[in-house]
């Protein structure tokens, strides 16, 4: 294996379909119109020297190194900023050019330190490469003159010199090495869209400045790493490279954080990760990254990782480290014992949306075939299960309709209950790029998220609805579309069931659904709703992106249906630029759903009651399957308390911290006789576990993840599992101890079995993934290359189905005791329950959960910024620090759920989506009051957790 070098073409690809032929150095080349001469030369195999150009950003033309000569044209134009033209004859190497380039390099080097041997970029420095390329042998100016290099100038402080900025935990900024090529500034603007960097000063005073000459950490920088990647020198360098040195081999793999599914090169030295670099050929991220995937991988080697299996009889005992075999036997005996005592259906399991498709498939197989019941669920239950129900009902399949590239063709983007710049940052950046090009934006969200207004982005409409009123707003948007004649009737007649459409149209047209009528419920101005509806219906390609602000409600499924209705009514389905796109929370939520993790469905979303489908699985697995649906996670908890569900196998999921109403979950877990947790760390759920099976990270195993665009991508093993086994091997071990043998030598064999059993996966294999890089399901005989966009020639279910969406208010109501509405979400630097990100330097950005409260509500309660406050709901109470913010509306408060000490889910309630039991995280009636510090509950919880995490010391045998 060697280091993967990606070609830098210097300038971005032109999308023009018109081709142009020219001659470069005597060679004829044909490229799309709009291509730069630099890129055309590179495609022909000639690398023109360059410093300020890189293909992630637009050409800039400042370094004057990429000069060429064009026959019949005067001067020496920069090849990066000069587009090709038919018949041009270009020379990239002439005596004149050689002389000019050498002169330019000489000037650069006269103001650059010559410490190449000890420089962190040694071996990966474009400045060094270019000095070599142009044959620079001498610097006639010396380097004693005015410079940015030395702290002292003739015994006096050099005013032009600036010290290294090491404030960011992951990279350093060394101004003495900067050549002011502006690549970092342009990457921050064009790729990331944050505009945190600028060039301050002019001429010789020019230098890169985060914000107004602030430190990187103190500026608006979001630490995405785009600038570091763009830097041609050691000016911006990963601290890991400074510490370890340059990598020697690399493998392409997929990020294990959010559902965007960024492809990275894991750059290695032996089994040590030197750095993670976003992969330009990654079709989800196109070479971009965020602070989590790029930098926050240190949890893999964190000292708190548990590397040995552990068992205990009761949860008040300390853990005892044992061999895998002993742990498997202990767990198997307990689980089989429970089945003997309470019945076959008294145990179950939860698959992980963080593990691979292959691992998830094995866990559900173990449960259905080995446990002999269908008590399998996954954390998608608590995030996107309403997407499954809603999109299957209306379109016929449970998945987003587009690929991420599609956003490049959107004219109107509607974001509902999602905060992509925090929770799906790389897609957020791609969306912002399109918005800066002129696409219109509608944001439906209770909070003023960054998309509402941030650098060079402003929503055309922000509908700041009261939490819990999604259906009312969406039906009102439909009301405007129907009553103002904005329906795309041709599309509806061709693609959808016309009579169902008519029933729906009649319903939405009712006066009670008009923007004016719902304004009182939603708190949103009727004219804004009308304007947004007109824009979405008539603004060109309209795309909807939504998140958990849609699904995590008592009417989550109804809201998804309402979104699908809107897209169908306006004909915004089945081509690039449009569609309905759920932004998935975890890396493999889509995959875990596809792999049959829901209790009622076998892989490929086929109901367990179908005889033909069951026959197929029974034949392959050689076992009889139970035709009745099993328990969903909330039902498991209820049944545990009731005494009919007593054993649980949880892979890679912290249900105690992430599920609502923590006290209820604690009660359920404490009622069980055997809880098996497979995880990297002793998570909160493990406090109530009897068996701990150590997990492996995405760096330590082979497999695949499926992202929010249905894209199946490889996860590649770059180091041995520190715990000894990959997660799929652990499941096989547990299954074997329970008397159910599963034999696979490699995850590719598991994928072959999935492909053989799942109609939408029949064309998927590791071989195919090697060839194509990634593939979007359905991938089968009909779509051998996969399906970037779904429902192109018709809906999967046949005719698109319109469904009436009546608004039903949640039973979680505000009142005198609980007058405020709490809504919860994520922040950029942390991920879900924080088990991974809290164990990295990402804590410098977010060390604790805080409560965002509007100044008006804060003043009424005498709360100042930073005060400890008590947050109380009907379910429980906790304390945290207040952050006074106008991002929330009066009457609404907001917090995150990344930290176990806060336990935001002590507050959330048991209310759930009517169709899928997805919890109503987004609406809780609360009161906020002053407090002196952690509540008694928090103290007691903390003590229980400490006690439960004890590991018995190993007693050495006497000699």
């Amino acid at each position: 294996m060697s280091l993967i070098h990606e070609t830098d073409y210097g300038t971005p690809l032109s999308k023009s379909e018109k081709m142009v032929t020219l001659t470069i150095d005597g060679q004829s080349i044909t490229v799309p119109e709009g291509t730069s001469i630099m890129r055309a030369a590179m495609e022909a195999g000639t690398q023109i020297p360059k410093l300020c150009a890189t293909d992630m950003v637009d050409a800039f033309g400042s370094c004057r190194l990429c000069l060429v000569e064009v026959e019949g044209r005067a001067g020496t134009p920069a090849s990066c900023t000069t587009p090709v033209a038919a018949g041009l004859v270009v020379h990239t190497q002439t005596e004149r050019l050689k002389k000019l380039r050498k002169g330019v390099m000489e000037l650069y080097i006269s103001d650059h330190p010559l410490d190449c041997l000890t420089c962190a970029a040694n071996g990966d420095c474009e400045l060094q490469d270019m000095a070599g390329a142009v044959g620079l042998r001498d610097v006639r100016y010396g380097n004693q003159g005015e410079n940015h290099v030395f702290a002292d100038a003739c015994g006096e402080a050099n005013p032009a010199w600036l010290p290294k900025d090491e404030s960011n935990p992951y990279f350093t900024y060394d101004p003495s090495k900067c050549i002011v090529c502006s690549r970092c500034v342009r990457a921050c603007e064009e790729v990331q869209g944050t505009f945190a960097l600028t060039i301050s000063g002019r001429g010789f005073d020019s230098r890169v400045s985060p914000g107004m000459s602030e430190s990187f950490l103190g500026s608006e920088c979001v630490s995405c790493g785009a600038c570091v990647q763009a830097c041609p020198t050691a000016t911006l360098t990963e601290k890991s490279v400074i510490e370890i040195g340059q990598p020697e081999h690399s493998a392409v793999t997929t990020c294990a954080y959010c559902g965007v599914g960024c492809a990275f090169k894991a750059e290695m030295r032996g089994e040590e990760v030197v750095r993670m670099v976003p992969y330009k050929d990654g079709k989800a991220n196109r070479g971009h990254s965020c602070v989590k995937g790029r930098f926050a991988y240190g949890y893999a080697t964190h000292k708190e990782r548990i590397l040995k299996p552990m068992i205990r009889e009761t949860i008040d005992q300390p853990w005892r480290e044992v061999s895998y075999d002993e742990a498997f036997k202990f767990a198997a005996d307990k689980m089989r014992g429970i089945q003997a005592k309470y019945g076959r259906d008294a145990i179950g399991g939860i698959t992980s949306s963080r593990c691979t498709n292959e691992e998830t498939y094995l866990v559900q197989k173990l449960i259905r075939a080995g446990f002999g019941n269908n008590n399998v669920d996954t954390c998608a239950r608590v995030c996107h299960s309403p997407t499954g129900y809603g999109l299957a009902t209306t379109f016929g399949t449970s998945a987003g309709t587009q690929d991420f590239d599609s956003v490049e063709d959107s004219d109107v983007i509607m974001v509902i209950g999602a905060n992509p710049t925090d929770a799906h940052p790389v897609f957020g950046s791609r969306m912002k790029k399109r918005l800066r090009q002129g696409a219109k934006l509608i944001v439906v969200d209770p909070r003023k998220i960054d998309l509402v207004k941030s650098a060079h982005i402003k929503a055309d409409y922000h509908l700041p609805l009261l939490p819990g009123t999604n259906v009312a707003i969406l039906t009102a948007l439909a009301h405007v579309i129907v009553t103002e004649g904005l329906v795309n009737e041709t599309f509806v007649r061709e693609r959808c069931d016309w009579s169902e459409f008519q029933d729906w149209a009649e319903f939405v047209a009712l006066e009670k659904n008009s923007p004016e009528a719902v304004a009182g419920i939603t708190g949103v101005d009727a004219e804004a709703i009308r304007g947004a509806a007109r824009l979405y219906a008539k603004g060109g390609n309209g795309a909807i992106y939504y998140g958990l602000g849609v699904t995590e409600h008592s009417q989550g499924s109804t809201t998804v249906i309402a979104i699908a209705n809107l897209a169908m009514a306006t004909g915004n389905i089945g081509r690039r630029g449009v569609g309905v796109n759920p932004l998935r929370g975890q890396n493999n939520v889509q995959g875990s759903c596809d792999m049959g993790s829901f209790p009622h469905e076998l892989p490929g979303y086929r109901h367990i009651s179908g005889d033909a489908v069951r026959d197929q699985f029974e034949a392959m697995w050689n076992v009889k399957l139970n035709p009745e649906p099993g328990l969903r996670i909330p039902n498991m908890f209820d049944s545990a308390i009731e005494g009919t569900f007593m054993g649980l196998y949880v892979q890679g999921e912290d249900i105690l911290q992430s599920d609502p109403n923590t006290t209820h979950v604690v009660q359920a877990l404490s009622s069980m006789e055997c809880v098996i947790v497979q995880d990297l760390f002793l998570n909160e759920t493990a406090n109530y576990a009897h068996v701990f099976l150590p997990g492996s990270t995405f760096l330590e195993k082979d497999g695949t993840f499926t992202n929010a665009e249905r894209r199946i991508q490889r996860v590649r093993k770059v180091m041995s599992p520190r715990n000894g086994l990959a997660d799929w091997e652990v499941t096989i071990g547990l299954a074997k101890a329970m008397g159910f043998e599963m034999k696979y030598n490699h995850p590719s064999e598991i994928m072959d079995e999935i492909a053989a059993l799942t109609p939408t996966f029949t064309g998927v294999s590791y071989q195919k993934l090697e060839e194509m890089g990634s593939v979007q399901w359905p991938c089968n005989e009909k779509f051998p290359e996969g399906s970037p966009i779904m429902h192109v020639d018709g809906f999967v279910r046949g005719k698109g189905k319109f469904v009436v969406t009546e608004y039903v208010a949640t039973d979680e109501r505000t009142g005198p005791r609980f007058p405020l509405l709490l809504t919860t979400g994520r922040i950029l630097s942390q991920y879900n329950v924080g088990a991974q990100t809290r164990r990295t330097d990402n804590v410098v950005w977010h060390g604790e959960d805080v409560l965002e409260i509007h100044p008006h509500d804060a003043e009424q309660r005498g709360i100042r910024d930073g005060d400890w406050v008590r947050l109380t709901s009907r379910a429980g109470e906790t304390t945290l620090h207040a952050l006074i913010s106008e991002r929330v509306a009066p009457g609404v408060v907001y917090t995150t759920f990344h930290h176990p000490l806060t336990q935001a889910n002590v507050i959330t309630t048991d209310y759930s989506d009517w169709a899928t039991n997805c919890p109503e995280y987004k609406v809780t009636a609360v009161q906020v009051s002053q407090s002196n510090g952690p509540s008694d509950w928090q103290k007691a919880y903390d003590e229980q957790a400490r006690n439960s995490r004890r590991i018995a010391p190993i007693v050495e045998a006497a000699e």
Partner: protein
Amino acid sequence: MSHNPTERLVYMANQIGKFFQSQGRDKEVAGVAEHIKKFWDPRMLKTIYAHHDAGGEGLDPAVKDAIGKLKDAAVAKEKA
């Protein structure tokens, strides 16, 4: 919200009922029955059937009808 298992199931069933109520009179009972059949595990069904036998207190009328129909079908299937 109540933690009594039966009361929770009654609440869930009525929530399903509220959705299908808006789908038109002919779909209401059938919709509720189909949804419950598709997503509820046997022990949840057993509990709600027992509650139905005991008078079905708290169940909205259409939901009560739907559960009655499911129960009858289950009994008939068992006999067959």
